[in-house]
């Protein structure tokens, strides 16, 4: 049981870590000051959640590792995040579309985890859900504002959803780890979150005057760790550089 649970917690932690790092890449270069601050705040929430998830993962694993160790000393094939969150930022519109597509799933997932049979997981989910409610509110508003904005912003948002849609399906696929979590009442069936998600996406895209791509083809391999996209390795060379070059460096 501890191995599947460790895997599951790494998936939750790695989603927050990889997206948190991606979003933090905007710090200092966002289009306007308010958006820069908002993006940095979202990144901060996600990194905070990472510490909780990976901290618990390390505790469950019981091999003397900690959250920092898992974040900075694992190689790309040991990461368990969704392919969606490792996709490069692109323009501001694509970053916000990626955020919306993730937030919609993330909030539903956390709300389900609040009923987990594992008290520590339920507590982290309860804490995180409050923060992610804000993230979803902002990313939905921004997708609507830009989609239903100028001709240029509309074009960019449609191209963002077209590009990112193939990474949505992975969030709802399940494997042996998910089966084990379901059997113990720890986590929901990923497929059970799809209907609510589809409704949310339909509503927001309609308000944004954007079209949902018709083809539901889904790339997979991120959360199982079978195959990440090439982008994750490049990101880790930045994210892990200091701790790899100077092991155990502290402030």
């Amino acid at each position: 049981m501890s191995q599947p649970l460790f895997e599951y917690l790494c998936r939750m932690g790695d989603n927050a870590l990889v997206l948190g790092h991606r979003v933090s890449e905007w710090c200092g270069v966002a289009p306007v000051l308010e958006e820069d601050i908002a993006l940095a705040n979202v990144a901060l929430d996600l990194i905070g959640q990472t510490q909780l998830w990976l901290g618990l993962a390390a505790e469950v694993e019981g091999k003397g590792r900690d959250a920092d160790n898992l974040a900075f000393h694992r190689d790309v094939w040991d990461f368990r995040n969704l392919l969606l969150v490792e996709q490069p930022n692109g323009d501001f519109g694509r970053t916000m579309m990626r955020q919306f597509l993730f937030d919609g799933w993330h909030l539903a997932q956390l709300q389900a985890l609040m009923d987990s049979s594992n008290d520590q997981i339920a507590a982290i989910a309860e804490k995180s859900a409050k923060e992610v409610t804000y993230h979803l509110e902002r990313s939905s508003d921004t997708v609507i504002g830009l989609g239903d904005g100028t001709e240029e912003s509309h074009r960019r948002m449609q191209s963002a959803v077209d590009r990112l849609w193939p990474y949505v399906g992975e969030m709802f696929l399940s494997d042996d780890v998910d089966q084990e979590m379901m059997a113990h009442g720890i986590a929901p069936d990923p497929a059970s979150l799809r209907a609510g998600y589809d409704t949310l996406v339909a509503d927001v895209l309609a308000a944004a005057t954007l079209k949902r791509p018709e083809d539901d083809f889904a790339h997979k391999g991120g959360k199982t760790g079978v195959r990440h996209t090439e982008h994750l390795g490049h990101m880790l060379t930045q994210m892990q550089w200091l701790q790899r070059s100077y092991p155990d460096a502290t402030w």
Partner: protein
Amino acid sequence: MVIEKPSVETVWEWLSQVPDPEIPVISLTDLGIIRDVQWQGDTLEVTVTPTYSGCPATTIINLDIETALRAHGIENLSLKRQLSPAWTTDWLTDAGRDKLEAYGIAPPQPAGGPQHCPRCQSTAVEKISQFGSTPCKAQWRCTDCLEPFDYFKCI
């Protein structure tokens, strides 16, 4: 060494003198993040809940609690983190809300936005951004006096 153990009420009083590092006009007890104070044998156990999971002030807060209690002669101290029930702005004390307003930060409202401008009291206010200078705040603006101001988010 045998020391006289101060009562938990006294410890709460001491903690009410420790300012929040980001918004020093309110204390840690005003903020409602101290969840419990109790003696476990000779060890004083203080339970703290984070406001936001990534708030960088959290480690400073723990350090400030430790420094304050050590200054009062507490030797055996243990700080516990409690995530659930998750912190809510409902735990801000009324005194804390008044101090925020007097400082120029609109206190949280269940309606999801400030009641009025903390400077001129006008109710003509608009949101600039859902996020602000710290994780717990959003940016708003008064359309009468035109001053931007911080709003303490309601969570």
